[in-house]
């Protein structure tokens, strides 16, 4: 018996109990929800960055000019990505 045959005969049957419901859930989700998940994944880190302190974000910067606020860099760069997932 090969390793592949062993796993498929003895282990896969048990794992299907866990994996089958997840598989069924993903199959049932409509296309708009796929896009929603992707857009949420893109936006969450960008928005979460605004909960960080300014001291933390500016640490090491030579000055505190607005253009050095990396939280704005993140949001600005995020927007085209979000647009792509909404279009395609």
């Amino acid at each position, binding site marked *: 018996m090969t390793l592949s045959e062993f*796993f498929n005969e003895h282990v896969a049957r048990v794992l299907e109990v866990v*994996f089958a419901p997840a598989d069924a859930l993903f199959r049932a989700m409509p296309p708009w929800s796929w896009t929603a998940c992707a857009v949420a994944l893109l936006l969450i880190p960008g928005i979460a960055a605004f909960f960080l302190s300014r001291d933390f974000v500016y640490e090491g910067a030579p000055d505190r000019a607005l253009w*050095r606020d*990396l939280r704005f860099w*993140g949001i600005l760069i995020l927007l085209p990505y979000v647009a792509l997932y909404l279009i395609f």
Partner: protein
Amino acid sequence: MNDPAETLGVIDSAIILSYLLGVLVFGTWFGRRVRSAKDFFVAGRALPFWAIGMSIVVSDIGALDFIGGAGAAYRYGLAQANFDWIGSMPAMLIAAFVFVPFIWRSGSYTVSEFLGRRYNVRVQIFSALIWLTFLSVNLSVMLWLTSQFLETILGWDVHFSIWLTVVIVGIYTVSGGLTAVVMTDVVQMVIMLVGGVALVVLCLVEAGGWDSMVAKIHALGEVHDDHFTLLLPHDTPTPYPWSGIVFGLGVVLSTSYFVANQAVVQRTLGARTEWDAKAGMIFAAFFKLLIPIIIYIPGIAALALYDDIQDPDRAVPTLVARILPVGLRGLMFAAFLAALMSSVDSYLNSSVTIFMTDIYGKWHRFFKADGPSSSQTLVLGRLLTAVLMVVAALTARHFENDDQPIYVFIQTAFSYFQGPVLAVLLLGILWRRATGFGGEAGLILGVACTVSLSYMGERLFPSNDPFLFVSVWGFLFSLAVTVIVSLLTRPEPPEKIEGLVYGSVVKSKSPGGAP
């Protein structure tokens, strides 16, 4: 198609030769500045954010993407772009705002070194061996893909192509270290962008414009209906179902890649300030937006123009040989070499850093109370760089793979350990109760889990190439194992983990140049 006289003009040859000589001289010039191990491995901590950002992107984009990625785009369509869009942006922001400052302030040279301090030496060595294997295999694959490209375009012998690359990249990487690697990366990024844009424009012109290209591909049959869709159904026959892309790639694989991959982390450690390190990562995220346009669109256009290419990995080489005029062909060729060399030099430098820090450094301390001196480390680092390059060249031919696109092959191998590494790293940073035994069990059993799952892939998952799902389940399994074993074992003493868990590190000020 393979006759050099037909495919390469004198101007092309002059451009290619100028590029090769220019990179060699430019890279080697930085060798004059290298006087210590710190100069060699972390560029003397003097890199500005723009160089770090460009270097991260161009190191990530190599021959694998130009050939393998474009090949996958030829076969599967725009969904391939997910690897640079959703498979990069969220992870790069997380890396910039969480992991980069963390690694800076914790005083580690490599992620494996951090894992060793946070857990134990066995976790460090296991993690280091995993990354060394990944980087070394990638080196060989890149050399093999280069030789494929050169054979298709120029008819050059495979071995000659591999050794030519090895000699040029080897010389400047050995002499200039990380500074040479990063600064040549900047030049190579510009060349890659110019060459890539030229190829995209000509492809689209040849295909009659974007709308015409879309129509031609849709006319090829129902199998290509989703060729311009980013998120494909869960039961798609391609390896890229939306569920795997969002949760496997977007959450697990990409985060692990951008926070634990030494080739990425090392550039941020070479930054002149913590702000430059963070800004470099975000700057790289901007360039990542452009990469699918210059790499995957040509792969898709190749399908509209030549739908009879048997091996998808030959899509872009075929385009270059058939539609680019004299002069632009040389430029594109230089762009491809730039992509290749930038990845090879980065992986080479990072492999040596891991070996010197996590393997040799540890071994040395077992036998001697004091570690190796800076000059010893520098000499050994250079020697090892040369040896590794030769080994990669000798093993390159073994990575010929006719069964599936090489991009999928690499991602599958990658998925075996990405989930477990991320789980152990995350818990080590965020959870004070994680113990050495917990990390060890999570890492080893996690890799065993992902390898086992891959044997059952066709039965358990909807895709024939289930690496995206395997990575998610491997990550969750490793999280569970690390938590359970940690709770069953004695907590680590507070003094051991002080300065190594998130709260205590982030509340501290940046040491301004440590480690």
